[in-house]
C-alpha cells in the first residue's frame, strides 16, 4: 500500500462537461448574435452603436454581479431592481434637496443598497424566510419607499433631477479616456459607466475567487449543511452575501441616476429579471455552487446586444421580450443537456 508512487489520481473531465463549456458557449452565442446583426443591418456594427450596447449593459451588468453571488449560494434576489431605484432616489435627495456634496450622495446611495441587502440577509438567515419571499417583500418595500421619498420635495411622486449639479451626470457619461482619444477620433467616446461596470466586475471576480467570502459563497451553495458542520457560521456569511448584492444594487442606483440625470422613482421593476437572466445565461446554476463573474458579464452583453439589434431591425419592443425569454430558456436547457452527459 505504502509505495512511494507519486502518480496522482486526477479524474478526467471532458471540456464539454466543465463549467468553462457554458462560458465558451455563451461567448460563442454572443459572437454569433453579433455577426448575424452585423450582416442584417449596416447600422449595427458601427462604433457609436457598439458604445451604445456597452452603455446599455452597464447598469444591468452591475446588478447581475450581485445576483451572481446570491444565486451561487442557491438563493435568489428579486429586490435588486427596486433597491437600485431606492438607492437612486436617496442619492437624489442627498444631492439635490439636502445639498450634500456629490461623493457623499454616492456613498448614501451605495449604503442604501447595502442596508437593503443586509436586511434581506438577516430576514433570510435569522427569520428563516425563504429568499424568494424575503426578497419579494423587499422588492415591494423598496418600491414603496422610493415612491414615498420622491414626494418629499413637492408632495407628489415625481423624478428628482440633478440639473444644478451637471458634474453628477458627467461621472458616468463622460469618458476619462477622452483627453487621449478625442484628438484621434473626435466623435468616439466610451462613457465611464462602461469602465465602472468592468471595474466592478474585476472586484467581484476577485471577491469570488480569492477571498473568504467568495469561498463560502460557493461552499454554502454546494452543500450548506456540510459547510455549517465544518464550523462556518453560515447565517453570517449568507447575510454578508446578500449585503454584497445590495452594494452592487446601490452602485447600480447611483449609475442609473447619473446616466438619466435624474432619480426616477417609478423605474426598477423588471430590472431584477434582466439581472437574473444575465446570470443564468452566463452559466450560473440555480441549484447553487457553480457560477462565474465572466459568465454573468457575457450574459448581460447577450441580453443588451439582442435588445439593441432587434431595435435596429425595427422589431417592436414587445417582441424583444419574447426573444429574450426564449434565449433564457434555451440557455438553461443547454446547461441541463450538458449536465445530463456528465
Amino acid at each position, binding site marked *: 500500500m505504502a509505495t512511494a*508512487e507519486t502518480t496522482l489520481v486526477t479524474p478526467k473531465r471532458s471540456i464539454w462537461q466543465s463549467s468553462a463549456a457554458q462560458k465558451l458557449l455563451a461567448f460563442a452565442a454572443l459572437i454569433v448574435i453579433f455577426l448575424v446583426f452585423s450582416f442584417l443591418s449596416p447600422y449595427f456594427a458601427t462604433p457609436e452603436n457598439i458604445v451604445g450596447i456597452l452603455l446599455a449593459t452597464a447598469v444591468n451588468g452591475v446588478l447581475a454581479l450581485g445576483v451572481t453571488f446570491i444565486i451561487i449560494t442557491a438563493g435568489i434576489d428579486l429586490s435588486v431592481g427596486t433597491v437600485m431605484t431606492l438607492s437612486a432616489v436617496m442619492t437624489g435627495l442627498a444631492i439635490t434637496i439636502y445639498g450634500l456634496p456629490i461623493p457623499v450622495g454616492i456613498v448614501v446611495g451605495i449604503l442604501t443598497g447595502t442596508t437593503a441587502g443586509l436586511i434581506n440577509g438577516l430576514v433570510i438567515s435569522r427569520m428563516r424566510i425563504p429568499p424568494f419571499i424575503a426578497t419579494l417583500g423587499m422588492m415591494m418595500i423598496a418600491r414603496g419607499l422610493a415612491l414615498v421619498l420622491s414626494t418629499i420635495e413637492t408632495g407628489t411622486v415625481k423624478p428628482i433631477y440633478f440639473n444644478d449639479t451637471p458634474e453628477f451626470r458627467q461621472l458616468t457619461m463622460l469618458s476619462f479616456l477622452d483627453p487621449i482619444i478625442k484628438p484621434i477620433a473626435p466623435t468616439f467616446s466610451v462613457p465611464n459607466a462602461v469602465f465602472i461596470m468592468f471595474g466592478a466586475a474585476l472586484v467581484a471576480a476577485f471577491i469570488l475567487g480569492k477571498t473568504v467570502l467568495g469561498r463560502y459563497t460557493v*461552499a454554502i451553495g454546494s452543500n450548506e449543511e456540510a459547510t455549517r*458542520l465544518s*464550523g462556518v457560521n453560515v447565517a453570517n456569511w449568507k447575510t454578508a452575501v446578500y449585503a454584497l448584492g445590495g452594494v452592487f444594487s446601490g452602485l447600480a442606483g447611483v449609475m442609473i441616476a447619473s446616466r438619466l440625470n435624474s432619480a426616477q422613482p417609478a423605474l426598477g421593476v423588471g430590472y431584477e429579471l434582466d439581472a437574473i437572466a444575465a446570470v443564468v445565461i452566463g452559466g450560473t446554476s440555480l441549484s447553487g455552487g457553480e457560477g462565474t463573474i465572466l459568465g454573468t458579464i457575457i450574459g448581460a452583453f447577450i441580453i443588451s446586444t439582442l435588445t439593441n439589434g432587434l431595435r435596429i431591425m425595427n422589431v417592436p419592443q414587445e417582441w424583444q421580450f419574447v426573444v429574450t425569454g426564449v434565449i433564457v430558456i434555451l440557455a438553461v436547457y443547454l446547461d441541463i443537456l450538458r449536465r445530463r452527459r456528465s
Partner: protein
Amino acid sequence: MGDVVLKMEGIDKSFPGVRALANAQFELRAGEVHALVGENGAGKSTLMKILAGIYSKDTGTILYQGQEVEIPSPRAAQHLGISMIHQELNLMPHLTLAQNVFVGREPRQALPFMLDENKINEQTRQLFESMHLRLDPRTKAADLTVAKQQMVEIAKALSFNSQVLIMDEPTAALTESEIEELFRIIRQFRDRGVGIVYISHRLEELKQISDRITVMRDGHYVDTVDAATVTIDRIISMMVGRTIFESAPEVPEHPDDEIVLEARNLNRGTAIKDVSFTLKRGEILGFAGLMGAGRTEVARAIFGADPLDSGEIYINGKKADIASPRDAVRYGIGYLSEDRKRYGLALGLDVEANIALASFRQFTGMLGVVNDGKTAKTAHRYVDALSIKTPGIEQRVRNLSGGNQQKVVIGKWLTADTDILIFDEPTRGIDVGAKSEIYKLLNELAHQGKSIIMISSELPEILRMSHRIVVMCEGRITGELAAGEATQEGIMRFATQRSVMLAMGEDVPSNGQTAEQG
C-alpha cells in the same frame, strides 16, 4: 489502549415527543476503536451528535481529557479535537479537495480576507501523503467515488489534530476492497493514539476493527464488552433485549405450481442478457448476485421503468405489454425500490397519503375529489395489519424509522391490489429487530398467495427467505437453486461465474458473508 480520553455520563436528551437518550453513558480511551451499536433509534447517533456539538444535551456531563466541557457548536468540538464523519457525505462537491479540507479555517495571506490557495494545496498534499492517499488536492470533490470522498472526510477530520474521531456508518456505501482501505487508515490513526468511535450496523465488521463494543437500546446504555471475546449472537441479543437466532433458517413452505409471471429472453443493452425465469403463486423467489449483476435492472424492466430491447413477459399465462410503471400496476405488479427515500415514498406526506398514493383512483369520487374517510380507513387497516409503529396516520413518513418506512411502502402496494411484489433490498439500512418483522411479513404475504421477487445482497437473508434462488452475474442468469440445496458457497459460485471464468474454470471466494462487491 491508552488513558481514558472521554467520558460521557448521565446524558439525557429529549426531542418533541421522543426521549432519545435516558441516562446514557460512554467511555473512550486513546488509541482504541470503540464500536457503538444498537438498533435504529437506540440513540447512538444522537449521543455522538451531542459530542460533536450538533445537538445540546438536556442534562449530564462530558469529561474530556479529565476536564468537564460544554460543546455548544461543531466549531467548539473541532477546537477540542473532536471530529465527526457523518452518515451522509459532507463534502462540497463544487470545491476542490484542498478547499474542502480547509473550509472554515482557511489560511490567509497578508490581507486577512484573502485566501492562500497554494498553502492549502501544499498542506493537503502532505496530509494525503501521510495517509498514503494518492489524490490530487486540486481535484473537485464531485469527481471522486464515494469511497474516496470518505477518505477525504477522514483526512479533513484528522487535519484538526483530532483526539477523538467519530464515524457514523462509514462503510454503508463502500465495497469490500474499499472497506479494507478504510480499516487500514483507521488502524493507522488508532496506532497514533486517536480514540475512534465507530457506529455500524454491520456486526461482522465490528469484530474485525474494534477493541471494545458499547451496546445501546432505546436511549439507554446496556453494556460495554471486549470485542475479542464477545459473540455476534450475544451482541444482537443485547441490542434487541431478547435472544433471536438469526442464523436459524425457517423452512419455507412449498408454493403452488401455478405460474403467475414468466419472463422470456429479456434483453436490455449490456445490463440484461437473455434473462428467463418463472414466478409461481405464493412463492418467494430470491434474486442473488453481486452488486451490479443486473438484478435491479431486471426488476425495473419488468416494472416498465426501463424499456426492453427484446423479450416477452407473461402474466398469468397471457402476454403482457408493459411500457410504463402505470401498465405494470395495472397488471398487479408492485416494485419496492432499494432506495425507498428517493423512489418509494413521499417523505413530506403523511402515512395515510403514502399508503393511498399508488391507488388514488380507488379513493376518488366524482369530479376527482378524494374520499378522505375511505383513505383514512384503509390507512388504519394497514397500520394495524403491518404493525407500523407511528403515532397516527397523519404522521409524516419522514419521521418514521427505516423499518416502518419500508412497511408503509408495502402498505402502499397492498392497497394498490398487487399480486406480484418485487422487493429490491427490502432490509437495507434496517436494524435487526425490524428486519425479522419484515421477514415475517414477507412470509405472510406469500402465504396469502402473493408472489414475491426478493432481490438481496445478503446471502443469509436470501437463504432464509427464498423458496427458489436465481443467481445473476453480469446481466445473465448463471444459476437457479432450490431452497434445500442452496448454500452461501453455491450462490457465490454462480454469482462470480463471469463469462471469462466459464472458460477458465471456476473461481470461488472462500467464505462470503455478504455479496456486496464492486
